[in-house]
């Protein structure tokens, strides 16, 4: 029998027991809807969490420190303050260039952080000065900044932290466009002869005010109150903590950096770059490490939501078994007739499978629509709540296309599996027996 005939017969049979088949199909739809709602909640929550973290730009960033650095960011086995020189190369310009040459790296910005004196309107304030890499310009946390980002990577411009700006002017907004003078310790010379330290000063134009800390305040580099472009800061040869270390150890050498911030074009390269950097004998750390456990959590959550969502579908599959067994009993004679005029056992079996699959298809499609509507309703409710808390709206439930397609396929699969027993029973029916009685 051709597939078209099969489904024509199945459709006819379903029309003949319209109410019963419709109720069973609705049962499947409810099961699929619960599965879709649960799964879309898991997917939506995961996307929500990922999105929050992605927005911070953290996943595109790997932090590199020297293993010798006593302030090493993680206390893992990488950190070896007493490591031999060949096991722990210096984090210098050569290393910086090597890392910058790795595939996928957009920018390698050294951490530049120093104490400085700020003079404005004949008042002075002592504070922390830090370099802000050029790649930070599209950082989400800087979106809400007043004024603008640096006009170029080497501009003599400064961005102030708002609380600090208040010390300079009660109305910090007035400061934008004004000039400040920065006094700082300048490292003079280097190499085998060692270096001297000088007091220097430089004039900067204030271009912006920052409410939040860059990178959500999660990075050491950002703990400062005055920011200038990293390249400008490097050109100023600010005295760095690494210099102190060199001085104390009396190991005159090239300039080294305490930390490099490696910015990738996309988060997908972070892992590879992190591995490559570790092979160069540096400590590397990325927030991908921190989210590994989070991703595991979501995998488990999805699984549980999936299992609970499937329960209703499991119940619905019993309804299919029941409906089809009833149909076999009711259509005993019809099955006998079909066999008498040439239907094979497998034809009979396929007719019942086609009926099961049809219910699965309709139930699946209806269920996906229903599940999507439930998701919309929950989103609407959640957003009403968020609105009252004056928080931006979020899509908590998400029904991606693959989930919709998978749910329909799953519904068909479950239905066909539920059809195995009734179909086998119908195929086994003895036609002589079935045709004997009126």
């Amino acid at each position, binding site marked *: *029998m*051709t597939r*078209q*005939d099969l489904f*024509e*017969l199945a459709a*006819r049979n379903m029309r*003949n027991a319209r109410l019963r088949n419709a109720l069973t199909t609705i049962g499947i739809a409810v099961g699929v809807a619960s599965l879709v709602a649960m799964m879309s909640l898991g997917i939506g929550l995961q996307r929500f969490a990922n999105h929050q973290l992605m927005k911070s730009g953290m996943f595109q960033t790997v932090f590199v420190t020297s293993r010798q650095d006593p302030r090493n960011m993680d206390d893992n086995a990488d950190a070896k303050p007493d490591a031999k020189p060949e096991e722990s190369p210096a984090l210098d310009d050569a290393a910086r260039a090597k890392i910058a040459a790795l595939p996928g790296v957009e920018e390698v910005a050294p951490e530049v952080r120093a104490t400085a004196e700020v003079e404005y309107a004949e008042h002075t304030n002592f504070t922390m000065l830090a370099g802000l890499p050029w790649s930070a310009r599209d950082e989400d946390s800087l979106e809400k900044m007043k004024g603008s980002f640096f006009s170029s990577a080497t501009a003599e411009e400064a961005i102030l932290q708002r609380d600090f700006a208040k010390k300079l002017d009660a109305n910090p907004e007035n400061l934008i466009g004004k000039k400040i003078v920065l006094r700082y310790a300048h490292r003079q010379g280097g190499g085998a002869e060692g270096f001297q330290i000088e007091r220097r000063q430089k004039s900067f134009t204030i271009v912006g005010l920052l409410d939040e800390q860059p990178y959500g305040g999660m990075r050491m580099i950002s703990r400062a109150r005055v920011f200038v472009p990293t390249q400008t800061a490097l050109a100023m040869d600010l005295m760095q903590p690494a210099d102190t270390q060199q001085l104390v150890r009396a190991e005159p050498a090239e300039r080294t950096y305490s930390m490099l911030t490696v910015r990738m074009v996309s988060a997908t390269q972070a892992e590879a770059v992190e591995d490559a950097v570790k092979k160069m004998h540096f400590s590397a750390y990325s927030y991908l490490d921190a989210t590994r456990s989070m991703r595991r959590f979501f995998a488990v959550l999805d699984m549980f939501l999936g299992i609970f969502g499937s329960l209703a579908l499991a119940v619905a599959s019993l309804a299919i078994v029941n409906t089809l067994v009833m149909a076999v009993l009711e259509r005993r*004679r*019809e099955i*006998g*007739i*079909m*066999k*008498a*005029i*040439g*239907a*094979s*056992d*497998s*034809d009979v079996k396929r007719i019942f499978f086609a009926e099961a699959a049809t219910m699965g298809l309709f139930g699946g499609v209806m269920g996906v629509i229903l599940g999507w509507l439930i998701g919309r309703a929950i989103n609407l409710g959640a957003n009403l709540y968020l609105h009252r808390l004056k928080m931006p709206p979020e899509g908590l439930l998400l029904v991606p296309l693959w989930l919709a397609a998978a749910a329909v396929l799953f519904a068909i699969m479950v239905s066909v599996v539920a059809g195995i027993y009734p179909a086998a029973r119908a195929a086994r029916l003895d*036609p*002589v027996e079935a*045709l004997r009685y*009126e």
Partner: protein
Amino acid sequence: MSEASAPGKQPVIIPAVEALAASRYYQMGEATVRAVDEVTFTLARGEFAALLGPSGSGKSTLLNLLAGLDRLTAGNIRVQGAELAKMDSEALARYRRLTVGMIFQSFNLVPTMTLADNVELPLRFAEFPRAERRDRVHELLAGVGLAGRAQHKPSQLSGGEQQRAAIARALANRPGLLLADEPTGNLDSRNGQEVMALLEQLNSQMGVTVLMVTHDPALAARYARRALHMADGRMLAAEVAQ
């Protein structure tokens, strides 16, 4: 399929039906019911035979064996060269689809289907080309005088009309053998005669071999050219009618 004869010999006629010690036993606890017991007979191509015998003599059981609906306990049946004893269930289904047609005392039309759908059903199982189905169904219904009733449900028809529709369905895939189990048993004499006339016409004009079970010796005498008698599952001596 009758082959050219060897020189000097009579032409070999391959019979349409050949039963060789065909048996169907039912095991009822300790007792064995010999519903059909070593029945041997042949039907020639184009023959119209009646199968007579008292109730419970095994007529329906024999017909079901011939129809490929039931399996032989022992012996063999050959229909147009095909050996039923050797067939698996798939081959038997194919045999029922293409080689035999069967009609019943109770018509056995699918009550929820129109006549056209009922007649189309065996065409579906045989994967008869879709494009030609409408014409074939029409031709079959017209052949039994029901062209105008194609879209009627069986319940809207008289018994005679239903049996004629059942005949149209049995002939859908042009079988060479038509088995009829008391086809007029549920009909009044006028409708019964209509159905018998149709069977006779099919037999004489299209050469369909017909084996008909009946209780009515008069009917057998009038239409069948030969009568077979069964009693207690056994075939009595075959005799020529008239």
